[in-house]
């Protein structure tokens, strides 16, 4: 029993790392735009599909496919950011909801039209099982957790120490003030959007090998879970996002392992409702940042 508890915690941290990587970008985009990016899971999907494409059609090795997938996704995001996201700076928040929901449909269906609606098997990855605390795991899962920790350390450094990070924080706190003080808000929005979608793509391409199959609608489920994570972590709070992601992952693993797999997807929503009732600012913020 004790061993099973530890194993489920390990499973939860792995699943949670995937959520956290996707959620980090979504929460930063929310910070600068005050808009929930409902299409965020689609960039996770685009990352996985780009990697699948370059591996199966161009015979690129997996490690290079990781880099290429991020480049391709960020390039698409740059176009979307320039055409849509930058315009949301001055738009009312309803526009953000409509625009990103619309983008989600367009991106999903563009992939279904180009590659068909069937599932594809993702090749590549490091799938050799290794023993860790008497638990048999694919190396890929350890890579995911390690990558997540490195990414969050880098994000923390960027947000605190770099000019770009300071600009992101400034825009998050007060957009008008930034405009008055000569911070190019639109550029900060575009930069944040590209960074956030790049993280989603990284998460997708790292998860591809262990989720085995990929398809056009795969981003939808992750968007919903990510939504629970960013509310739990405190909207716009990067550090809280990692802890919230792990917490959701562990809670899901316990429910799937001890109660039943069919209740797993309910966990995120139950937590979401509970937080909105008890602590709407999230677990890790003293007060709302807006």
């Amino acid at each position, binding site marked *: 029993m004790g*061993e*099973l508890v530890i*194993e*489920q915690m390990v*499973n*939860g941290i*792995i*699943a949670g790392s995937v959520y956290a990587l996707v959620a980090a970008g979504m929460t930063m985009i929310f910070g600068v735009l005050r808009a929930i990016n409902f299409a965020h899971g689609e960039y996770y999907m685009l990352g996985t599909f780009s990697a699948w494409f370059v591996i199966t059609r161009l015979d690129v090795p997996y490690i290079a496919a990781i880099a290429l997938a991020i480049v391709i996704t960020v390039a698409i995001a740059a176009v979307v950011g320039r055409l849509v996201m930058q315009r949301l700076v001055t738009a009312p928040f309803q526009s953000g909801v409509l625009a990103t929901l619309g983008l989600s449909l367009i991106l999903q269906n563009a992939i*279904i039209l180009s590659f*068909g*609606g*069937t*599932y594809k*098997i993702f090749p590549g990855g490091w*799938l050799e*099982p290794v023993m860790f605390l008497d*638990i*048999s*795991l*694919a190396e890929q899962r350890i890579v995911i957790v390690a990558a997540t920790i490195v990414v969050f350390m880098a994000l923390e450094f960027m947000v605190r120490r770099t000019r770009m990070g300071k600009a992101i924080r400034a825009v998050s706190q007060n957009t008008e003030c930034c405009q008055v003080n000569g911070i190019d808000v639109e550029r900060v929005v575009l930069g944040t959007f590209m960074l956030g979608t790049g993280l989603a793509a990284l998460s997708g391409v790292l998860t591809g090998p*262990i*989720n*085995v*199959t990929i*398809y*056009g*609608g*795969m981003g*939808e*489920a992750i968007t919903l879970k990510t939504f629970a994570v960013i509310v739990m972590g405190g909207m716009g709070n990067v550090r809280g996002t990692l802890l919230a992601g792990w917490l959701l992952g562990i809670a*899901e*693993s*316990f429910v*799937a*392992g*001890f109660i*039943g*797999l*069919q209740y*797993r*997807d309910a966990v995120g929503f139950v937590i979401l409702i509970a937080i909105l009732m008890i602590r709407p600012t999230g677990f890790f913020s003293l007060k709302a940042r807006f």
Partner: protein
Amino acid sequence: MIGQAISRYISPSLAVGILLSVLSSLPALAQSDSTIRVGIVSPNTGAAARYGTFAWRGAQLSRDEINAAGGILGKELELFQGDSQCIPTEGVSALQRMIAQDKVSFVIGDVCSSVTLAMQPIVENAKVLLINAASSNPDITYKAGVDGYKWSFRNYPTDENRASVVLKYAAQQKKITKYAVLSVDSDYGRGAINLTKKYLDEFKVEITSEDYYKDKEADFRPVLAKIRRSGAQAIIMYGLADTTPIVARQMVEAGLAGKVILIGSAEFNNPEAIKAAPTALNGAVEAAAWMPEWDNPRNKAFIDAYRQKYNGETPNVHAYAYWETLSLLAEAAKQAKSTDKDDIRKVLSTITYDGVMGRVSFDDHNQANLPMILFEIVDGKSAIKGTFSTQIKYPSR
């Protein structure tokens, strides 16, 4: 000058007039009785998109064969595609669109039992003939024929006997006593497990855990960890083919491959799944309505024609089922000497048809008496272990 003036005034009105008359004649043309309009409902996107793609290809092949042979009583067959996404509400709206806009008289669909169950009352009201080709939940024909829906037929075996045959084989041939359940959370998955549970005492076996996955689930590690420690020797899975590679590969990773086998039905013989995790699928036992290895001359001709049309791809069970069912519809029309849906419906209930799987006729619940094949994956290949009848003894009313 005058001519110019006249043409300036007349030609726009003439153009509008021509346009109007063309437009008004279009629907008339489209709805003329020169073709037989058949709706094909299948999941083309979403979690069961693999099934829908195969189903649609099978139906197209059958249409081309029928039309190349001169159509049905001189009329060409015309297909309309509807995407159910394996979601009942989506299937029903696709069906209603076909009935209202495309004016179909016949519908073949859906793959997913939950969708078919939702479509049955709609076709009954619209008096459109539904021939299901690929759903296995027993309720579909319990509710049809003498006990209900007059316009629903099923040309596919039901799960009624499948559950007991699979369990019997695993218990008696493989000597397995402890089973974990991991099936899809749908009318099909839960229905098959409920039928399995009826036979636990008879074969002296037990179920150690019971889990149902959502159709888009991708992380089975928590459940596999539990199963590994529960001592179960087999996983009963009535699931979706696209999930099989995920579960199989995660079984390899969790150290279950070679120790725990999969039994039930989820296309364990899909070559792509076997390639993704050969050790996990070795020894898997499945009961299916059809398989490519089935020895029958018409089956060989079907597979050859399919491969020729679709770049060498081997058909799956849904391609076969839709292809066969559309051919059955054409045969019924020929025997009825009519393309009227009511005439064809009457012929269907008495027809005897030489299909790939044997001689087919429908019982008083509009259920075809088709056999199922039991097979086991041995070294990456399917080995046929026998066939069994799926004929049902309905409870007396």
